[in-house]
């Protein structure tokens, strides 16, 4: 048992070939999740029972099941159906990458919509009343009053969610995707040196997490620049 530093230096370039896939997975699914989450949020705050109940069921199901199971249902389960294979979505579900993005986006949107809802509830009622008194319509109030204040409130919670999303992309390696984790698992299978390889991957993930945290910190500072410190 020895710690082989040469192996680390030799395999880090190989591990980094997977970083592109990790980034693509993360940013694509986070972007789709954000759009879905806004739709879910609008359903939730609409106050109409036929929109609120589907939203609650959606959030309950996607937050109550492991993301690994969701990935497996989409990757292994969907190609079983004829109508999915014949639909226009087949190019997405045919590839493991598409399946991983869909699963991550669906899962994350449930969490993000609840975070956004917290932000909407955090905007004080008086501001709404003031807006209504000025004759603003509901959608105008949402765009010009709720959204700018709410976004500032949700950034800390959203940054946590983004980081757990970054960690969840590693699960895509279970459906044969070669992201950083997938490449690392391949190298470990060849060399059987789990300590060296997995610790270097862990350090890369830690650096990524740190960078995301700093970026969201800067964003939060920028968004609340009018607030006196």
């Amino acid at each position: 048992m020895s710690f082989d530093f040469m192996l680390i230096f030799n395999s880090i370039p190989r591990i980094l070939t997977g970083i592109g896939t990790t980034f693509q997975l993360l940013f694509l699914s986070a972007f789709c999740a954000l759009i879905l989450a806004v739709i879910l949020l609008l359903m939730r705050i609409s106050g109409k029972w036929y929109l609120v109940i589907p939203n609650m069921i959606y959030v309950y199901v996607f937050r109550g099941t492991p993301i690994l199971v969701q990935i497996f249902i989409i990757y292994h389960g969907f190609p079983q159906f004829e109508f999915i294979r014949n639909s226009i979505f087949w190019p997405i579900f045919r590839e493991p990458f598409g399946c991983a993005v869909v699963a991550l986006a669906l899962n994350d949107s449930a969490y993000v919509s609840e975070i956004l809802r917290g932000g909407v509830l955090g905007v004080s009622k008086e501001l709404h009343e003031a807006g209504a008194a000025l004759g603003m319509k509901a959608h105008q109030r949402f765009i010009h009053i709720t959204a700018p204040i709410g976004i500032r409130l949700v950034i800390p919670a959203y940054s946590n969610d983004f980081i757990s999303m970054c960690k969840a992309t590693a699960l895509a390696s279970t459906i044969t995707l070669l992201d950083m984790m997938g490449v690392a698992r391949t190298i470990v299978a060849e060399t059987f040196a789990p300590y060296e390889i997995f610790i270097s991957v862990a350090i890369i993930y830690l650096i990524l997490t740190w960078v995301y945290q700093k970026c969201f910190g800067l964003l939060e500072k920028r968004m609340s620049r009018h607030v006196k410190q």
Partner: protein
Amino acid sequence: MSVLDGWWDDYFWGSVVVLQVFLVALVMMVLLGLIGSAAKLSNNRVAQKIANAYTIIFRGTPEILVLLLFYFGSGITLTYFVKLFDPTVKFVDIPPFWAGSIAIALIVGSYATETFRGAFLGVDPAQIEAARALGISNFKTFIYVRIPEMWRLALPPFGNHMLSLIKDTAIISIIGLNETVYVAEQATGTTAEPFIMFMVVGCIYLAFSSVITLTVMVLEKYANRHLRSA
């Protein structure tokens, strides 16, 4: 659902394994959280540094990475030490059950550390001073004053930690623990019906998380019973 005939007992025993992992990991996670938060709140610099490193590392790396590192790493280390005594041994490893439980307890324990730290800070210092004035020892103050007070504050986030604990058990199937996801993979191999097989797993986990959510709601009500208006 004739496809599922003959698989129900496998799913049942898989759920039992999930429950066992959950309970074992829950105990370890609470202990880790208490030790970690105690270290963070202590005046000892070294303990603080170690606890900080622990939370940064385990909150910043993917669960699957920690699990694989722990399982394969412990296998290599154990084999090395056993070989010192008995060179005929080829390979020893920790059973996937224990490796998995410890790995997810370490991960969720780092989150629990932060939660407990916040909750301990939320306890009114006057309570501690009152206990000291009554001549109660530090240890007894911890057990009878600090823990009951912080528990109330820690419950809501702690419920979320329990949910991530039960969901993380699914990942342990990767190292070959025969829990529900593993059962579904085997069932798919024989029946070629992956959708239904994994849907059953999803329903099992949904049931588990519903039970946890309800339990936390009841516990919260119990913890806050003195605040209810008469």
